[in-house]
């Protein structure tokens, strides 16, 4: 009698466990990873004023370069355009025309094998540098900016801001 009961209970437990296993095996975990481009500002950049008529982000003069990181999760899906400033977005009244120089370079990449040629393959259109993001991963860009006041006139005292534009455009 006891043996029969034991067998029934054991069988029930076994069946329950098997059912449980079967259910567990059939429970899906769904997830979708969307391709995306993320623009991150590592450093906004700071102007130094090494002489009266120059504002520069050059670290040797005490400035700081703008550093931008772009993460892409799908190869050959985006291009990145980074434009160095060509005007101040805010400044005191200026006594003369300001001339601008600036450049963007690849500072670091997360995958040297597949991203190593980003800098050599970039297309420069004036102050705008265009990069084809042919691999997935992170790329760090550095942008420099130098503003020189015409006629060697002094920049008036005040705060100056210019905009580095970083764009990630789906192809």
């Amino acid at each position, binding site marked *: 009698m006891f043996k029969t009961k034991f067998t029934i209970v054991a069988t029930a437990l076994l069946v329950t466990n098997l059912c449980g296993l079967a259910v567990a095996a059939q429970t899906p975990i769904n997830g979708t990873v969307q391709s995306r481009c993320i623009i991150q500002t590592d450093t906004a950049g700071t102007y130094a004023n090494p002489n009266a008529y120059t504002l520069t982000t050059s670290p040797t003069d005490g400035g700081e370069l703008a550093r931008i990181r772009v993460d892409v999760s799908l190869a050959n899906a985006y291009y990145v355009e980074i434009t160095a400033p060509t005007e101040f977005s805010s400044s005191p009244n200026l006594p003369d025309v300001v001339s601008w120089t600036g450049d963007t370079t690849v500072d670091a990449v997360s995958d040297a094998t597949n991203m190593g040629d980003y800098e050599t393959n970039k297309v420069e259109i004036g102050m705008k540098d265009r990069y084809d993001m042919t691999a997935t991963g992170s790329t760090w860009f550095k942008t420099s900016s130098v503003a020189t006041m015409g006629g060697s006139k002094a920049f008036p005292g005040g705060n100056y*801001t210019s905009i580095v534009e970083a764009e990630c455009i789906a*192809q």
Partner: protein
Amino acid sequence: MKKLISIFVLAAFLISNTASAHEMVPTYPVLKQSYVDGLYVTTMTMFNKRPEVEYYEIGVYDSNWDPIDFVSNYKIWKIPYLSTVSFDIYLRAEDKYKVTYICSRSKLRKSEKSRTAVSSRICSKVKKIGED
């Protein structure tokens, strides 16, 4: 051991670098017929991880980067730091084959410091009707 130290250094570097980010998905939005006849709609989602930016402006463009009229709740969205906003963009049926890019651009505040500021812009490319 060396590998462990490298991982630790990399992790410390990543944690200490408080980068700020701007993100918009999907990369390839699809237009669908909306509940209003003659209007097409797509839904975009933005995430703001830029503490210094609160507002993002939306723009819709054709393949020549000429602006296309659209309707959304706002054209400039307030997206607080570390929050996500999803929004619908409605377009006229006559523009459904012209629309190419949907872009979001960060709006920057005036600063009290002499600096360069980074304006970020992300553009998604609209899949044309009937495209895979």
